[in-house]
């Protein structure tokens, strides 16, 4: 059997008596764009926290390129090529935009914990930083302190930091939450180009974004995946409709 980019099997997580993630099995191909949807409180963020190493699973396994990563500290998982963004902007607020991205670049450029070299004199680091800033449309904002950025730019910076390290599996947690229509369009464009050729796993509430981006969709309800299929089939799925009834309707108008 081929190795999947990411493979979850029998994954469980409970906090005390509350079972948040219940026997989740999911295989994601290399280069796939996979969306995870579900009502509020379904456990989407918890699932991300389990994959990225913030939480340790109660039981089950998470494999990255066939290698077991459950229980491995987050920074090691990141070094193995899995990167994630956060639902709430999680940036380095007192540093400039450029410094934010540069920090994200450091590890991939083999800078390690170096204390003997000047960060400004490494051409490769500067070039890559610039490339990421350009790709995320942040070049003009580069010298600003991150805390002064407008909301949409903070979200863009969040994505910039996430992809800066060049991870080949990227997890985005509600990247367009709270954005206006035009901002969302821009963000989708950004996500599309930024994750070119990478495996993308995205949690989103905006169905337009999902059906626009995703190759396959998994529906998570009360910690269980009730369906995994192509967008077309998900729309026709009876179980999914039931789960969403009264919460938010699946958009019919989206092609």
């Amino acid at each position, binding site marked *: 059997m081929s190795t999947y980019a990411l493979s979850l099997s029998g994954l469980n997580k409970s906090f005390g008596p509350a079972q948040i993630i219940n026997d989740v099995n999911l295989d994601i191909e290399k280069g796939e764009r996979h969306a995870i949807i579900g009502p509020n409180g379904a456990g989407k963020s918890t699932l991300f926290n389990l994959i*990225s190493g913030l939480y340790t699973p109660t039981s089950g396994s998470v494999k990255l390129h066939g290698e077991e990563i459950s229980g491995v500290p987050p920074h090691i998982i990141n070094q193995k090529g899995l990167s994630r963004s956060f639902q709430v902007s999680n940036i380095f607020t007192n540093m400039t935009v450029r410094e934010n991205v540069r*920090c994200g670049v450091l590890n991939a450029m083999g800078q390690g914990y170096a204390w003997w070299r*000047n960060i400004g004199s490494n051409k490769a680091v500067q070039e890559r930083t610039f490339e990421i800033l350009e790709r995320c449309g942040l070049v003009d904002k580069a010298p600003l302190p991150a805390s002064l950025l407008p909301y949409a730019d903070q979200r863009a910076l969040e994505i910039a930091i996430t992809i800066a390290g060049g991870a080949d599996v990227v997890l985005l947690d509600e990247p367009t939450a709270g954005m206006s229509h035009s901002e969302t369009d821009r963000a989708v464009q950004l996500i599309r180009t930024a994750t070119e050729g990478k495996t993308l796993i995205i949690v989103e509430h905006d169905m337009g974004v999902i059906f626009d981006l995703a190759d396959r969709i998994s529906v998570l309800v009360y910690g269980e995946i009730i369906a995994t299929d192509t967008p077309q089939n998900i729309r026709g799925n009876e179980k999914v409709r039931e789960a969403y009834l009264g919460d938010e309707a699946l958009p019919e108008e989206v092609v």
Partner: protein
Amino acid sequence: MSDQSTYQRLAPSRGQKFTQRTLPFIILAAILLAIPMTGPSRTFYTIAHQMGINVVFALSYNMILGKGGLLSFGHAVYFGLGGYLAVHAMGWIEDEVGIWGSIPVFFLPVVGFVGGALAGALIGWPSTRKAGTTFAMISLGVAELIFAAAFMFDSFFGGEQGISGDRMNGIELFGLSMGPIAEVYWFIAFWMFVGILGMWAFTRTPLGKLSEATRDNAQRVQFIGYNPQRVRYMVFIFAGGFAGLAGGMAAVNYEIFTPDALSLIPSGLVLIMAYVGGITYFVGPIFGAILLTYMQSMLSDFTEAWLLYLGVLFIAIVMYAPRGIAGIVFGFIDGIRGSESGIYIKHWALNLLGILLMLIGLIILVEVSVRWSNGYGDIYEPFGMHLSHTNPLTWFLFLVASVAGIALSLFVKKQKEATA
């Protein structure tokens, strides 16, 4: 797609680099070289040396507080342990133990650095696993432990009277016998310059940047592939090292170290220096160290309540100027350059007047109270006035100054809110 010229667009220009990075160090070097030409007095040298030591110490403290986000109540431990090691090394130089005979006293701060860094490596290992408030409490507990242990191991710490040495031994470097105070000046100036340069350079390294990132958001640091605990730990070792460097400077300057050097008192003082100076700026702690050293040596001659003034200053900075003196200075520069500099200067001057009035009120209250409390019949007599606690004039002046100062400050605050 990114050719050189584009990515370099983001980097500061050559001119900016010069004025912001190189020039300050040239000016610093020039000042340091010029000071002895003015033929300073012995007192001046004494205070200047203390300032040099404190500048390095306060900057080393800011490596963890300002740049690393770790609030420590026990930083003097590394200053003290580094200094103790240097005093011992001074003894080994004198006795020509092993290779020590061939090492000049001039290089003792390096020994101090090693001592401080080793101490940081040992103590930092359990304590930097935590950040924030927990780290602060731990640093205090560990400092108490080391301080108490210092009185148990006399062979290293020398008990209450400490350990002393003689700097006029070993090889002379640069023709400095290190005897006269004017020669020690070059030693202090050199190491202060090296210390400032070294710590500034550290802020420009990947680890230095990661330290800031960990301060801002330790969780996110994990998701860019770094272990925040390891970042903290490494920065802590360096901060210990530079504190030890300052300790080594003190060892040569004073030729003695006592356990008090690693007690909570200098630990608290260095915290106040860094914070009052301004922890968000690299130069902040330098301002703070200079001001506090000056206060410590000058003010303590004028008043026995100088610690009270220090406490008031510190609380005032925490409450009203959290960016410290550096924040006030740079804010002022921005203000007078700004578009509404006229109004800015007016508010600033009124505020200053208000603060001065409140200060006068405070000084009268404190000085009269101190003398009254001592009960020796001493009377506070500024400018020939006879301000005893029974004199109604005393309380009249106190009230007028305080009320006027507070009223003025409130007035300026209202004005600012109205214009904002």
